[in-house]
């Protein structure tokens, strides 16, 4: 009996102590465990700060036992070295290994010979879903200093959706899927922090402060961990070229109004609806039965709410291929296909 109890006690003790380096987030049971696990892997990063009014701090996470850190590429990292505060208050210099301009991910290396840092597993895989509970760890507003734990926010994953966002007039380069959350992660210093599921598995890296192009509101989001992982790989292997090819690949000879044979009502206000003004006789538009006053609501699968939307959509469609349009005629939705003239 005593032996059995001993085994149980030792076992449960081991269970608690065994969570230092091993990346066994799955074993973590209580919030306390998860929190400890996350805090040990979170760091505070201090740099020079680029321009006035911009904070000189951000968040980051350890991603290897040798002290590699993933964070966001920003003006905070403008100098080649930055100061990193570990969870235990240890202050270390770190050098910027590289940055990925597509995802705005940066990798730092702690200037140390130590090789037993606790870290988040870059190969961790999840299946997130809308409504999934999430935890966000970051040093937003530099609330935590020294060995103080970083701030944790809780919330749910709102939706997995393409990043359609901008800061001022600058559009985000990455337009792939991100994890939008309902916790207020969009705050100074939060970028570079980590989004976790409730078992401590990394889901993503908290993104920079951006406003949604759809809602006009500040966007709380994280870059999927898989993307971060690939980005870190690219940086460490020096193969950043592969990131750039993902950028907008526009066709060389895109479709045009002239080629398709219709004109829109002139754009006079910001949200001029894309009504067809004229259809050229004998054109692809005429053959497809398009008519003046038809309102184009989708072009090649892209939703078009304005004159400008139609122009942008056309630029992405090759000029020598059929184009599908959805138009509103009266209160009827009509689908048509426009076939360019020079097709066989």
């Amino acid at each position, binding site marked *: 009996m005593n032996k059995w109890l001993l085994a149980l006690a030792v076992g*449960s003790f081991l269970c608690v102590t065994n969570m230092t380096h091993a990346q066994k987030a799955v074993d973590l049971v209580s919030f306390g465990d998860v929190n400890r696990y996350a805090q040990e892997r979170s760091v505070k990063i201090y740099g020079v700060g680029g321009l006035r009014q911009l904070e000189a701090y951000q968040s980051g996470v350890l991603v290897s036992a040798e002290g590699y850190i993933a964070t966001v590429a920003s003006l905070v990292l403008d100098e080649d070295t930055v100061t990193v505060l570990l969870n235990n208050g240890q202050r270390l210099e770190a050098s910027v290994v590289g940055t990925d301009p597509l995802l705005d991910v940066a990798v730092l290396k702690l200037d140390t010979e130590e090789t037993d840092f606790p870290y988040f597993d870059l190969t961790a895989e999840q299946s997130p879903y*809308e409504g999934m*509970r999430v935890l966000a760890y970051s040093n937003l507003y530099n609330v935590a200093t020294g060995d103080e734990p970083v701030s944790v926010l809780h919330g749910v994953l709102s939706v997995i959706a393409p990043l359609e966002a901008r800061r001022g007039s600058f559009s985000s380069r990455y337009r792939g899927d991100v994890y939008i959350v309902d916790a207020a992660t969009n705050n100074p210093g939060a970028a570079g922090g980590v989004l976790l599921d409730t078992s401590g598995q990394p889901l993503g890296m908290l993104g920079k402060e951006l406003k949604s192009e759809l809602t006009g509101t500040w966007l709380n989001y994280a870059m999927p961990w898989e993307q971060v992982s690939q980005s870190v790989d690219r940086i460490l292997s020096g193969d950043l070229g592969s990131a750039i090819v993902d950028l907008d690949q526009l066709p060389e000879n895109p479709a045009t109004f002239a080629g398709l044979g219709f004109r829109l009502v002139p754009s006079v206000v910001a949200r001029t609806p894309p009504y067809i003004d004229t259809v050229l006789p004998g054109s692809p538009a005429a053959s497809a039965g398009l008519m003046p006053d038809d309102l184009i609501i989708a072009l090649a699968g892209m939703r078009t709410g304005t004159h400008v939307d139609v122009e942008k959509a056309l630029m992405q469609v090759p000029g020598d291929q059929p184009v599908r349009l959805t138009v509103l005629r009266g209160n009827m939705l009509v689908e048509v296909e426009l076939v360019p003239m020079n097709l066989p």
Partner: protein
Amino acid sequence: MRFHPASTRCLRLVACFAAALITSSAFAQSVAQLEQQAIRDAIEHVSPTVVQLQIIGGADRLNDVSLASGPSTGVILTPDGYVVTSRYRFEPAPATVVALLADGRQFATEVVAHDYSRKLVLLKLSGAEDLPAAEIAPADSYRVGQWAIAVGRTYRVERPNVSVGIVSALRRIQGRAMQTDAAVSAANYGGPLVDIEGRVLGIIAPMSPSAESSIAGVEWYDSGIGFAAPLAEWMPAFERLKQGEDLQLGYIGIGLVEGVARETPAKIATIAPDGPAAKAGLEKGDTVTAINGVPATTQVEMQAAAKPHYAGDTLEVTYQRGDETSTTTLTLTTIAQLQEAAEAAKAKEEAADEKAEAKEGDADGEEESNAGDSEE
């Protein structure tokens, strides 16, 4: 191995503690899992009834406030395609609105009528049939502290976007809305706030306790202060909107005495000329004590009892004049009609004055009656 009795006892304690720790955390885990599953199920339940609204045309700014440019959200109320949404993007009216369902169906829509008081608009999807309709949570199920999940369909057609919180308060915005701490913004205005069973508690819309415009309250987006018009309570209004009747906030046509609204009785300081109160025989100095039999001991209570009603609704107003308590009925009017009546009365009075002046050659300036700025 041999153990000292004391350390064995100690060990036993540790073991018991460890066991308790494991069972309690296992229990906590299962509760968390159940909770998570319930949230997922609730989203799944309501999701087919939540439509994306592609808003075409319309303003990009209103009163110097930038409006969202992406899609909005609506909720299907009937299988034949009545959809309710927020008025947030409907002032001025967009050129057209196309409704997109998660299953890929899309519909042209027309605006049936507006509810200016609760800031909702009713749309009809053209040629729709067999649509999934939202399940409505009964009004007597509302509880402060219950789960509240805000659902939109703004970011993508095939998946809803959600935020989770609780019902923070009931009967806000003078009795017209419930409050939630779930994140609400243009990402879910017009969408449903649902309970843990996926039943619709209310329709999310920007609202403000102190302003009636279609965008008042947008500054509180994602702040933990969000509002939704309770749907079960709104369904009688839906029947009126279906007939094409626009609904507006109903006015009694009185101004109340100055004071602390939460403490001061609803004593009448001014009566709008030819307004509902004037026609019903209410006078300056009367104190309103009940609306439709619901006691109102303060100005706040009176507003909460009166403001949920629309122009055209008939109210029973109980009031005190001196030692006497009486009850009268009146028909609420719109702010526009109230102003019109007041201007007509003023013009009439001025005309009478001019006549008198013309007759007497000279007249003393008469003090104008002032309707006051706190019209109710």
